[in-house]
């Protein structure tokens, strides 16, 4: 058989196969379920960095990984000594557990983790009662409790401050914790990966207060 005829035959067969293949592939693609995007190594590195910063309690560093670099107001210390004490205790209480790397769903990549942290509201509930108990103990320890009062017959501010601080310290010694699940999305922009937090993660960054 001549080479030219052989070549023609081959082209014809290949062309037919490609035509049929493209039609079949098109139908299959239209009816097939969405395939999830696969997370890259860089996405995993970003998500692990976020979780590590969260676990370390370095919340301002977590903010640096957030998409759009929002200003969260976490780059300063709390205004009062009690606030600083509480904030430090809260950050120390954050513990992150994650069983898996980030995963793809549709066109998005997510990371899920369990975060246990101090429930500030529950921990501080009854602070007034504890302060009252401390005041009573202080007064009971005095021979003349009235000597503790100021000229106006009220408890001096310095004593109040001490009692409040001690009540807070006692509450922080037995913190109540809560576990929440966070799921944040990972987004790539200009070659860099960022985290888009969910409401649960924002709650944790803000101290879990509501």
């Amino acid at each position, binding site marked *: 058989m001549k080479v030219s005829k052989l070549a023609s035959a081959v082209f014809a067969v290949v062309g037919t196969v490609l035509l049929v293949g493209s039609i079949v592939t098109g139908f299959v693609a239209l009816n097939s379920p969405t395939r999830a995007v696969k997370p890259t190594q860089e996405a995993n590195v970003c998500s692990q960095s976020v979780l590590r910063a969260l676990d370390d309690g370095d919340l301002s560093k977590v903010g640096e990984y957030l998409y759009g670099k929002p200003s969260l107001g976490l780059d300063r210390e709390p205004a*009062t000594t009690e606030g600083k004490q509480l904030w430090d205790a809260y950050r120390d209480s954050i513990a992150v557990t994650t069983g898996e790397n980030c995963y793809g769903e549709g066109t998005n990549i997510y990371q899920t983790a369990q975060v246990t942290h101090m429930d500030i509201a529950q921990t501080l509930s009854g*602070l007034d*009662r504890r302060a009252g108990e401390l005041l*009573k103990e202080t007064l009971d320890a005095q021979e003349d*409790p009235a000597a503790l009062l100021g000229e106006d017959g009220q408890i001096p501010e310095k004593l109040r401050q001490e*009692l*409040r601080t001690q009540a807070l310290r006692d509450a922080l010694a037995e913190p109540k914790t809560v576990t929440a699940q966070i799921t944040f999305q990972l987004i790539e922009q200009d070659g860099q990966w960022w985290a888009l937090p969910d409401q*649960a993660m924002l709650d944790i960054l803000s101290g879990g207060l509501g």
Partner: protein
Amino acid sequence: MGYKPKYAASPRKREPDVIRTKPEPEKKPSRPKKAQSKAGRIFQIILTVILVPVCAFATGKLLMDMVETVGRPKAAVVVKTKDMAMLDDFDAYVEKSMAQADSGLKVSHLGLTEQTEPTEEETEPVREHYTIPEDALVAPKPNPSCYGQVDSPAEMEPILKKAKWILDGQKTYFQTNQQIYEDSFIRYYLDDSIFAVTWQEVHDDSVYTFSEIKVEDASQFRRHLADGQYGSDTQYLTTEMAETVNAVVASAGDFYRFRNFGAVVYQGETRRVEGTYAETCYIDRSGDMHFTRGGEVLTVQDVQAFVDEHDINFSLAFGPILVDNYELVEHTWYGVGEITEGYARAALCQMDSLHYIVVTANTTGPHQSIPTVAQFAKNITATGCRMAYCLDGGQTATIVMNNDLVNRPVNGQQRKMSDIIYFATAVPEGGTDNG
């Protein structure tokens, strides 16, 4: 003498024998063959050996790209996190807590008595517990003055404070730092028996409408079928049915009349059981959600036994189950609801005892994505709910509060349907004003 006729033929000369053969066809003069040059031959080989594989490869690559593009939906628009002053809020909270601690430091301690001045909690008024009779077809009318709306989550703080007693220590998914959909506002209702707050958020470029409800009694979580009876063929809009029964918040149900699917239980009685793979949700008389999975209950008798065992009031037959005892439930397939495609979605969630969220996901404004069930479930779990179950989605997905449609249904219009679930006040006079 011989006879010779006149016209006898003269003897012909015998022609010599000739072998007759077919005439040969005329031969066309053949063109002289061009001698193929070496260069031409080489060129032909190169063309065949190189061009064919290259074309085949390029076509294959094009096909793969086509499959890739068709098989993957467009990425959703991403909304950046808003700027926040988290430590400012924290400082404010600490100041409030320290002021609260200060309130425990009373001069009355000087008397060395163990009595302390009563705290705000101790002076809470004793509140009556209201119940809606089981046979009541409609609930008491809500008090119009108990409804309200605010523009920002922070403005809900005094309302949440007033609702503290009805929340009974339970935490809400709604927080005062909630990130709401910027073109929306927050609605609420609070009286002596029910607290409801409704708002919208954006997730994965889809607008989610949440309505979080806490009731005092299980009788306030109710189901209404069209015309107040099982099997009616008439259909109504969700807003119409919500107004008929005096709902504070209502959601479209499972559209039980549209399809024969799952176990339908109403007023403690099993009415219909269809489909071996259906996952059904049941609400008991304490207001708690229960589930049966595909294949677990296949007959009316099986379902009724389950109903009797768990004191079930009514069921919802759509699904699938999204969350079961805080665990996300994954599905690769389900008989209804096109779970792997983007679709408007609706769900009922239980947060805690007598504490619920109804939620829908729709396209609204610039946000034109709608989730698969997997995406929907992922965002539902962020609420921290204990149980969650899909209701009929698509154009049926609707949430109504104060007889107003809150979410934007598919095509901007409600669809008439056969049933709703709703939450109502139990206060007979229509709610005491807590506003």
